[in-house]
């Protein structure tokens, strides 16, 4: 078997990025790549779960559904039909700090895709009938993803309530049924007026396109949307925990217990290098069979069935502004083993903080992480979404191309500091009690 390369030279993604801003404030990012006749179109609005009003949990997501129900000039169902009969696919998703809408299309449907996004940015058709229909659809989405399955929504729905104190950070982002049922078309119109202004959005276009032609199409379709003031985004930051918090969550379907341990990490936008050190630490702990917690908890002590460490509620470290969470989660067969698991994790973190990493350990983990970043950018729609996300959350789409270089500069000492900060008195522990145990 070939030896381990000594000093991996890390490749970086290369994009030819152009920026353009419309008079109404819409920011546009374009990245041509003419290697295949496909194109991605994405619009990200700077509003997510954290901006939902009290008493309206789940509203950002319900509203995302309403954005597909017809628009300025299109009836219900027409958005889907226009995308799919062009040979394309579509979707949208609601995150803690933003909401996205996107299409992957054959290159010959680019202008159609831009038109479709502009039509709903201009005005969605919000009717009582569509709201009632999508309320039923969303309740069924929650049933299939949360209520009718083991470990549904664990831990992303439940851990924030232990980690955080403010409504914005701690509430159930999928929404309680009572809150969802009390939503009105007036709520939806207010939400649109407040948060869906062109100046509160980023449009990203990547793939088989000519930049000048694409900018002209963008001006033509989005230029006529009236300028509205973008809302001032409040800070959602909370002070770090000073004492351990514990709670339990009962899952009626789960056959064995699980645990999620959450730690606050530094502001992911202002302290990007600290975020990257934490990201590398998460990979050192659980990525692959050679990772520290796989060896200790799975292979040596046989305490857990699986273990994963990740940053961001949905596992994407670049998805959230402050605050964001470093999570370690595990499933384990013996309900009495939780303290032993926590103790083993503390010991492994202390070992890294005290002794640092083994020779070659940081390099191999870093090489793998860069490879994952690159691989995730191969699909045109992923590239489109990532450029938009880095522009919106981190202020610069170009940052993606700089990540391998920034990761290369992270040292053993940085990981030791990151590990040292994950102390028992700084963590929130959520234990899942298995109601479906045999």
């Amino acid at each position, binding site marked *: 078997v070939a030896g381990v390369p000594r000093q991996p030279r890390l490749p970086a993604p290369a994009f030819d990025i152009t920026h353009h801003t419309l008079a109404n404030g819409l920011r546009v990012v374009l990245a041509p790549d003419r290697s295949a006749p496909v194109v991605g179109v994405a619009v990200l609005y700077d509003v997510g779960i954290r901006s939902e009003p009290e008493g309206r949990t789940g509203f950002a997501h319900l509203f995302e559904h309403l954005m597909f129900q017809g628009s300025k000039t299109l009836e219900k169902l027409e958005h889907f039909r226009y995308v799919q009969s062009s040979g394309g696919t579509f979707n949208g998703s609601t995150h803690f700090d933003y909401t996205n809408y996107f299409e992957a299309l054959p290159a010959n449907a680019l202008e159609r895709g831009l038109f479709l996004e502009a039509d709903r940015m201009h005005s969605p058709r919000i009717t009582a009938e569509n709201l009632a229909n999508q309320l039923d659809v969303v309740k069924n989405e929650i049933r299939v993803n949360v209520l009718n399955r083991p470990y549904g929504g664990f831990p992303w729905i439940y851990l924030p309530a232990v980690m955080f104190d403010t409504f914005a950070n701690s509430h159930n982002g999928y929404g309680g049924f009572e809150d969802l049922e009390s939503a009105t078309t007036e709520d939806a119109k207010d939400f649109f007026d407040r948060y869906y202004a062109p100046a509160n959005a980023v449009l990203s276009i990547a793939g088989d396109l000519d930049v000048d032609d694409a900018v002209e199409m963008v001006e033509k379709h989005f230029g006529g949307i009236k300028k509205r003031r973008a809302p001032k985004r409040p800070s959602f930051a909370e002070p770090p925990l000073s004492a351990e918090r514990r709670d339990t969550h009962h899952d009626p379907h789960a056959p064995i217990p699980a645990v999620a341990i959450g730690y606050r990490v530094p502001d992911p936008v202002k302290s990007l290098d600290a975020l990257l050190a934490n990201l590398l630490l998460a990979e050192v702990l659980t990525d692959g069979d050679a990772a520290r917690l796989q060896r200790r908890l799975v292979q040596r002590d046989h305490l857990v069935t*699986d273990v994963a460490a990740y940053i961001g509620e949905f596992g994407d470290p670049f998805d959230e502004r402050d605050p964001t969470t470093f999570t370690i989660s595990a499933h384990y067969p013996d309900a009495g083993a939780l303290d032993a698991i926590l103790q083993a994790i503390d010991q492994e973190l202390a070992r890294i903080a005290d002794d640092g990493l083994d020779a070659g350990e940081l390099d191999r983990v870093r090489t793998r992480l860069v490879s994952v970043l690159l*691989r995730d*950018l191969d699909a045109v729609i992923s590239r489109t979404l990532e450029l938009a996300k880095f522009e919106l959350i981190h202020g610069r789409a170009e940052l993606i191309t700089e990540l391998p270089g920034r990761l290369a500069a992270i040292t053993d000492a940085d990981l030791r500091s990151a590990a040292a900060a994950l102390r028992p008195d700084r963590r929130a522990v959520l234990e899942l009690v298995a109601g479906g145990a045999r």
Partner: protein
Amino acid sequence: MTTEQKNAKHSHVPALTAPRAPKSLRSADAVLDNGLRVVAVRKPGVPIVEMRLRVPFLSAKPNHPARASLLAETIATGAGDLDRIGIAAAVQALGGDLSIGEDADRLIVSGNALSTNLAALLEIVAAIVTAPTYDRDEVATERARLVEKLSIARARPGVIAGEALGHRMWGTHPYAVDLPTPEAVGGVTPAQLRSLHRSSVRPASAVLVLVGELPPTRMIEHARGAFDAWTGSAASTRVPALPTTTGGPLLVVDRPGSVQTSVRFGGPALPRTDPGYPALQLANLIFGGYFSSRWTENIREDKGYTYGPHSRIDHHVLGSVLGLDVEVATEVTAPALLETWYELGKIASLPVTAEEVDSVRQYAIGTLALSTATQAGLASTLAGLAAFDLGLEWIAGHPARLLDTSVEQVSAAAAQFFAPSAFTSVAVGDASLIAGPLAGLGAVES
């Protein structure tokens, strides 16, 4: 009236411009001396190379599913001089990843690495297939984990429904077993894994797919260098043909406390090599195979009974299957089934429209291009096609076959395959709430 003509009522909606053809890809295809077929494609994109090694794994032996599952969990836990941690660390240092999967048809080793590291990745994979250890302690660890993973899988309603449908469609055929029982897994020994490996993990009839930004001939040379020492003729397997499914009453499986009912329908379909396949593919899309389908527009966008119904064609070595699945709220289970039978009866007995066929044709052509526009997507597609002796030429030629398919052919395929009586069906949910209303609509078994 075509979709374009219909859409002309919205003259402001931009028309599609002239389609651009994808660039043709350079590829090479070789059979090594040991019988291993290697398919290599140069695909521009990111500096990553994708690998899929597909080994036939079909067996009629009753003890096969448990052994095959545990083999997949343990095959990469030691090989040659490397222990489990050594393998994982070496792969990670290549910017790589390896994962092993298996089903009734095949064992598949999937991997990727930075393209500069392809030769080293293949050497590790070659060590795994030629000199696996099946260390006692590693097998014991993974056996216990697999039992827990199976209990977690079986707590999911979709898994329960899939198993119930499999048994009802295939009876005692190997295809009826998706997951082994914990008891069967508990008894598997390292010696049994080594024996299964020796008899079945062999190069003859196996296919290695490599996709990346590298010259195809160089990729083949790397494969030749790495897999030289892998030997063994193809395992002889005798597996009975798939039984003919006959429909029958809806089977209700009780899962007390379910807030939704998981409904699964299954019936026969055509393989990709059948001249009638493009018409069936299009009929399936119109029925429930994409968001703008009749089934989705009815029970989701009009009635809100579900988050999403899906119908699909799955291609297995012994036959293709038309499958429908949907999770509906418990209280609307009967009306959701009524609408499903209505849509099946309608598409089976009334012609589809030209507008519907135009839409799904463009969708099928466009999404084939999108799914094969990534290195990983192309590698997985080629590994799937290779089992049927199909390859890049099938992907390149399929748009023309879809364009050549008439509205009448699609209607005829729908009439043949979508009749409600053709399906075997199960519903997993809270029987105390759904059995009564369902029995009111038609024959039900529990």
